[in-house]
């Protein structure tokens, strides 16, 4: 299906041969090269009926097309799917045309379907003719010419530039400042967020059965000493929050002594589930 074929000479040739030859002659050639799809092929077939396109017999055309497709299949030639779809539709159309009209009113009659197809063929034909007529007109740059050396109408642009002293000073100060500031690199402070601390605690109470010292647990996480302070502060706040929600118990022997936490019975699994999103394989302790 090449687009570049303006003339369908070769295609028409082969079809012309086909229509003039008897069905069983071995010279039959089935060739859809150069056709732009089934509608194009149908139109060419319709033209070969050698009558006014408005007077073509859709039934004859249908039979011609079905014969063409049948032949292609007999020769085991590959046909593009849309050719087969058209064949199926035309077979249906043929059956509708041959069966006496049924007055069910729901589906369009065979005649209506045939008229629709005839209309499409006529319309395509009309557009082809229109394209040809259009191209036969005297065209600019081919038959008709514009001024070869246009004398450009010049526009003299007198640009008046505007800028205020304030604009300029602002631009200067802003840009000098921006540059002087970029030479100072501010380091991002590492801070543990409450959410991070809570996630850590939830993992901790999920994995330990009894009382666990928070600090010793944290130490396994924190290799950088500068993070310790923020980590301890955040986990402490988070643990208080979790106590309030009744998820954990917390205890401390005396001031500055290690803080211990443990999961509250029955709630621990809930916490674990929330955190891991897993609902299977949990050991449920009797509440």
């Amino acid at each position, binding site marked *: 299906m090449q687009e*570049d074929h303006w003339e369908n000479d070769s295609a028409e040739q082969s079809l012309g041969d086909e229509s003039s030859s008897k069905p069983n002659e071995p010279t039959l050639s089935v060739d859809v090269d150069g056709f732009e799809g*089934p509608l194009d092929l149908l139109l060419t077939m319709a033209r070969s009926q050698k009558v006014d396109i408005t007077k073509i017999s859709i039934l004859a055309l249908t039979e011609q097309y079905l014969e063409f497709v049948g032949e292609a299949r007999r020769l085991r030639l590959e046909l593009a799917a849309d050719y087969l779809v058209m064949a199926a539709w035309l077979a249906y159309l043929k059956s509708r045309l041959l069966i006496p009209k049924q007055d069910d009113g729901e589906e369009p009659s065979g005649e209506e379907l045939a008229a629709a197809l005839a209309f499409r063929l006529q*319309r395509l034909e009309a557009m082809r003719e*229109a394209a040809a007529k*259009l191209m036969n*007109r*005297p065209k600019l740059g081919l038959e*008709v010419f514009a*001024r*070869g050396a246009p004398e450009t109408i010049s526009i003299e642009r007198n640009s008046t530039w505007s800028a205020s002293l304030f604009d300029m000073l602002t631009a200067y100060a802003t840009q000098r400042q921006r540059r002087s500031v970029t030479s100072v690199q501010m380091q991002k402070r590492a801070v543990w967020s409450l959410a991070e601390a809570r996630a850590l605690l939830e993992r901790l109470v999920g994995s330990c059965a009894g009382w666990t010292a928070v600090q010793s647990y944290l130490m396994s996480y924190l290799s950088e000493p500068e993070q310790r302070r923020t980590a301890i502060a955040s986990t402490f706040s988070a643990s208080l929050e979790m106590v309030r929600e009744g998820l954990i118990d917390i205890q401390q022997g005396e001031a500055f002594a290690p803080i211990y936490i443990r999961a509250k019975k029955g709630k621990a699994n809930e916490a674990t589930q929330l955190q891991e999103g897993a609902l299977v394989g949990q050991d449920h302790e009797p509440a």
Partner: protein
Amino acid sequence: MQSEQIEGHELADKKQAFETLRMVEALLFASAEPLSMSELTARLPRQADIPRAVKELEEFYRHRGVRLVKVADRYAFRTAPDLAAIMQREQEEQRRLSRAALETLAIIAFHQPVTRAEIEEIRGVSTSKGTLDVLLETQWVRMRGRRRTPGRPVTYGTTLQFLDHFGLETIKDLPGLEELKGAGLLDSAIPASFFVPAPDDSDELSEDEIPLEAGEEDDFKDGISTTRTIEA
């Protein structure tokens, strides 16, 4: 004495009319692109009777080697079509349109505003993106807007350059338009409808069209425009 005054007045009037004619002639002659009345008005003295000058020029050049032609609402000098034979050497290299592109162009011209799906319906095959791109590149076809239907498909139409290229004064001068209309072949649906659509290349969108989004059109225009903008 009085008659002399009147004559003097008439003479001055004629002189001015001729000056206007010269100016319009010069402006239209100088430009390769068609110029609109308003473009002419912007360049001419206020009192100039431009329509009269244009009419006189049209009349005068009707049988000359160059003619004054009307393209939409613009005017341009073009060589007379009957001299095509001796002009052939002026030809610039023109890309030949493929059959698919030609058919698509005709469908857009006659059925505009028309969507890609509608073009495909008429041709019975899918339209490759390349075909529409080629047509947009020729500047004969433009994206007009979007159809007010699900998916809001782009509608296509023809341009001023299309009219200019094919020597049409208006889209109504499309060859065979009346016959096609009469035969109902410009209808989108099969049943003989009561209203016969006509191609519409006006800049205003039709009722079932909505504008392109900002930039959609410009993207393309940027590609082809020759207007230079200076950047500070």
